[in-house]
């Protein structure tokens, strides 16, 4: 069964076309991540799914029902916002329970579900505090708790980690992944951060300018990007695109090589000078200025003695190279 189906969804704000003909399905229990740069329409798409915005055209189906005209509270969804959006005047407990109370659930049911969610998220000792008395991480857990308590068919997360500091972000990411395993619920997660996308997703949807660029598992997108945008967006440091530095690349084509697929080699095809070295312990990143004036990032595993100013040659396996045409689309048979 499908948890969510979008067919030909468009959204206009006035004359601005923000979502362009979106078609998409989310299977039951699937963790789908929408990823794309800021302003590409991720939040808008999520709000259309939630019913907070009406689609200008197209249909939204959740479970078996077309929900275009169903109000948000009746769609069987729950949403976690970037800014937490907790009710400032309610305690943690009441924040989580409000949705159920509005549904008219008996008090015992509300109590039970709230305490279950509090236990799951380690929030029991904060039950009677107000949001202002919690740290950022705790607030975000309350927001997640508020979503869990409603037992939705579909969870929607809008950049839930971007207000947290780096350490907390990692922990909460793991918690969300665990949550998905425990609840085996369908989840849609919006982020502009490709690491979150790669680590959490069963399926990634890459968006650009309101259009779906590519859909697939993280490894499919990584190993087989459909175009230069997807190739550059996923992977860190991001892919190198070279027009001149590699001999035999036809005019008008660009070759894309990931930093980890380059290695130092005496007889390498690319030659240049090291302009910057980042030693991370586990990895060493080199920035190399090629003789043709392009910049290449090289990621070497382990520690490497290369210094700034060294002249190096770089080599790569042809299997690991991607070719793109002038329209930035992938070319599959490399022109020989």
């Amino acid at each position: 069964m499908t948890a969510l189906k979008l067919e030909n969804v468009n959204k206009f704000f006035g004359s601005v076309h923000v979502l362009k003909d979106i078609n998409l399905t989310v299977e039951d229990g699937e963790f789908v991540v929408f990823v794309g740069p800021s302003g590409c329409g991720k939040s808008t798409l999520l709000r259309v799914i939630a019913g907070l915005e009406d689609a200008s055209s197209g249909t939204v189906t959740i479970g078996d029902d077309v929900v275009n005209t169903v109000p948000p509270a009746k769609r069987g969804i729950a949403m976690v916002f970037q800014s937490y959006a907790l009710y400032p005047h309610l305690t943690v407990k009441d924040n989580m329970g409000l949705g159920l109370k509005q549904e008219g659930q008996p008090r015992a049911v509300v109590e039970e579900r709230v305490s279950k969610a509090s236990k799951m998220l380690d929030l029991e000792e904060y039950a009677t505090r107000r949001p202002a008395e919690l740290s950022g991480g705790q607030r975000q857990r309350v927001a997640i708790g508020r979503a869990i308590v409603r037992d939705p068919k579909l969870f929607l997360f809008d950049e839930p980690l971007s207000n947290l500091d780096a350490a907390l972000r990692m922990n909460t990411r793991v918690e969300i992944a665990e949550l998905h395993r425990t609840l085996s619920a369908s989840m849609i997660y919006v982020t502009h951060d490709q690491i979150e996308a790669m680590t959490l997703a069963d399926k990634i949807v890459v968006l650009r300018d309101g259009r779906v660029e590519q859909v697939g598992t993280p490894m499919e997108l990584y190993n087989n990007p459909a175009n230069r945008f997807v190739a550059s967006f996923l992977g860190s440091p991001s892919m190198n695109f070279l027009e001149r530095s590699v001999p035999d690349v036809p005019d008008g084509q660009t070759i894309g090589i990931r930093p980890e697929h380059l290695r130092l080699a005496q007889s390498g095809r690319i030659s240049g000078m090291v302009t910057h070295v980042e030693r991370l312990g586990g990895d060493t990143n080199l920035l190399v200025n090629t003789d043709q004036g392009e910049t290449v990032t090289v990621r070497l595993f382990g520690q490497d003695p290369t210094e700034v100013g060294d002249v190096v040659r770089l080599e790569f396996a042809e299997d690991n190279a991607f070719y793109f045409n002038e329209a930035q689309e992938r070319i599959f048979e490399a022109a020989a």
Partner: protein
Amino acid sequence: MTQTRRIPGTAIAAHAVLITYTIIALFPVFVILINSFKTRRAIFRDPLGLPTEETFSLIGYQTVFKQGDFFLYFQNSMIVTVVSLTLILLFGAMAAFALAEYRFKGNTPMGLYLALGIMIPIRIGTVAILEMMVSTGLVNTLVALILVYTAQGLPLAVFILSEFMKGVSDDLKNAGRIDGLSEYKIFFRLVLPLVRPAMATVAVFNMIPIWNDLWFPLILAPAEEVKTLTLGSQVFIGQFVTDWNAVLSALSMAILPVMVLYVIFSRQLIRGITSGAVK
């Protein structure tokens, strides 16, 4: 190390300016208060002197209370001010919410139209208002005053409140919608508490002019049983003789309720501002 600690001169100068201003602003109030407790002769002989044993007198207050209707006037003023403020805040906030929250055709023109009243003084329409009140039979009722003051206060209220409401997090309202709160509950339970400082500002701005107004009570409600305090106090000011003791006493007492309301609102104001800043 704060800026003020390094340059104490700045702090002293700032305080000097503020204290000077406070003294200037409070001086008339102070003069009214001390003179209301003095005999008539003492008022004229030494207007700035504090009441002493021989000049102390409560004659002004006695006159005011003997006048009998003072409490009625007081009550009228209170009713008019409080009801007008309530209506201004309620309707102003509702209109502001609609303007800030909903996208509909003519949103911007509607906002401009509602703000137009800020620039056009309502007194220009006095004749038309009087005609309307006469034909609806509202002359000499408190309702007439309340309606006029509400109309007078709404434009600025809508303007200020809609700016503040635009600043209330969309996510919060959306969270409420997903939890099944109605638009009314979102307005009353989520948005209004968050714009409380702005509401207090609007209340303070509107309160004093309404309380002190002489114009509309004189024109729309001059009858004895609907006189406001300001209008009522005028009986002591004659064309030839003025009972200064009574006037000063009435004015002193008129300050009290405004001060109480002001303290209530301004505490909200300060709490709102600091809770936002220190969050």
